């Protein structure tokens, strides 16, 4: 799989994503935000970081970059887009995903390992996991509090488009297990077509046991399986 990692000037997880693709047997390539060209891409990653400093609102400025025009077109044609952390914020601002990511309930930056629960495995992003599987991955964000109007959230739930939820050590959703205060403990979602996924936790930092977790591998494996499977283009 050929995966393009978009680098905005303030991206700081582009290298981590690049490596995660390599570790998953894919061929990563960077795309500078001012450049264009996704014709060779099987998938795109919008990595974490602070794209343009994010002083105004996370992701607000990044969506105007030339590369993003291509990413939006790529997504509209069904191309897989994985939007991690700041990438999730950018994808929401760009209208690729519904809702918005507001300040954490604590008004502090959160950096720790977070328990997550896989809500559905029937997607190109989660097929390598077990239904209901509990994962642990690093989170690192100040604006990860997912909000959308109630109708939108109901539809996400009904369509099975909530992929991941924040849970506590027992695997249950709870106030304590949802530190940033996201609506219905949502940690990751996908768009209607299922080809754009946004998530706040970092699978790209959970690829090797020596750094604490391998629970992020499944996301990349699922994507690889989808791209290499019989239905692949």
């Amino acid at each position, binding site marked *: 799989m050929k995966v393009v990692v978009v680098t905005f000037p303030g991206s700081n997880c582009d290298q981590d994503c690049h490596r995660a693709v390599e570790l998953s047997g894919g061929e990563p390539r960077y795309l500078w935000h001012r450049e264009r060209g996704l014709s060779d891409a099987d998938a795109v990653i919008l990595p974490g970081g602070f794209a343009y400093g994010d002083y105004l609102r996370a992701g*607000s400025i990044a969506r105007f970059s030339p590369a993003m025009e291509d990413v939006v077109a790529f997504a509209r044609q069904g191309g897989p887009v994985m939007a991690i952390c700041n990438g999730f914020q950018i994808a929401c601002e760009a209208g690729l995903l519904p809702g918005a990511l*507001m*300040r954490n309930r*604590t*008004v502090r930056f959160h950096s720790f390992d977070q328990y997550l629960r896989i809500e559905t495995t029937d997607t190109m992003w989660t097929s390598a996991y077990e239904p209901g599987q509990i994962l642990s991955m690093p989170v690192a964000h100040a604006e990860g509090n997912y909000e959308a109007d109630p109708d939108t959230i109901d539809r996400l739930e009904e369509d099975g488009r909530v992929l991941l939820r924040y849970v506590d050590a027992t695997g249950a959703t709870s106030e304590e297990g949802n530190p940033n205060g996201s609506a219905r403990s949502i940690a990751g979602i996908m768009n209607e077509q299922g080809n754009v996924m946004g998530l706040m936790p970092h699978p790209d930092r959970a690829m090797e046991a020596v750094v604490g977790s391998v629970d992020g591998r499944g996301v990349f494996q699922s994507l690889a399986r989808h791209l290499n499977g019989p239905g692949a283009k």
Partner: protein
Amino acid sequence: MTRYQLEVRVVPRTGLLDPPGKAIHHALHSLGYLGVEDVRVGKTIFLQIDAPSGREARGRAEEMCRKLLSNPVTEDYEVSVLGEGEVQDGTDS
């Protein structure tokens, strides 16, 4: 061309949760300000815009709000023209 001073206020939409507002509310209560009943926190953006008319300047600012300065999902905005005049002292950043 005149230089207009505008103020853009971007505020969290009513009904939506406002974590900074809530945190400040909590802190004010802890400091003993019990009469505080609600706190909401927004952003104020002061713009200096060169435009042929105040109307034009305001129109541009409103466009900027829709495009960049506010998030349509979570925020409302309001533009007001504060004044007009000559180029100020001090260059920009």
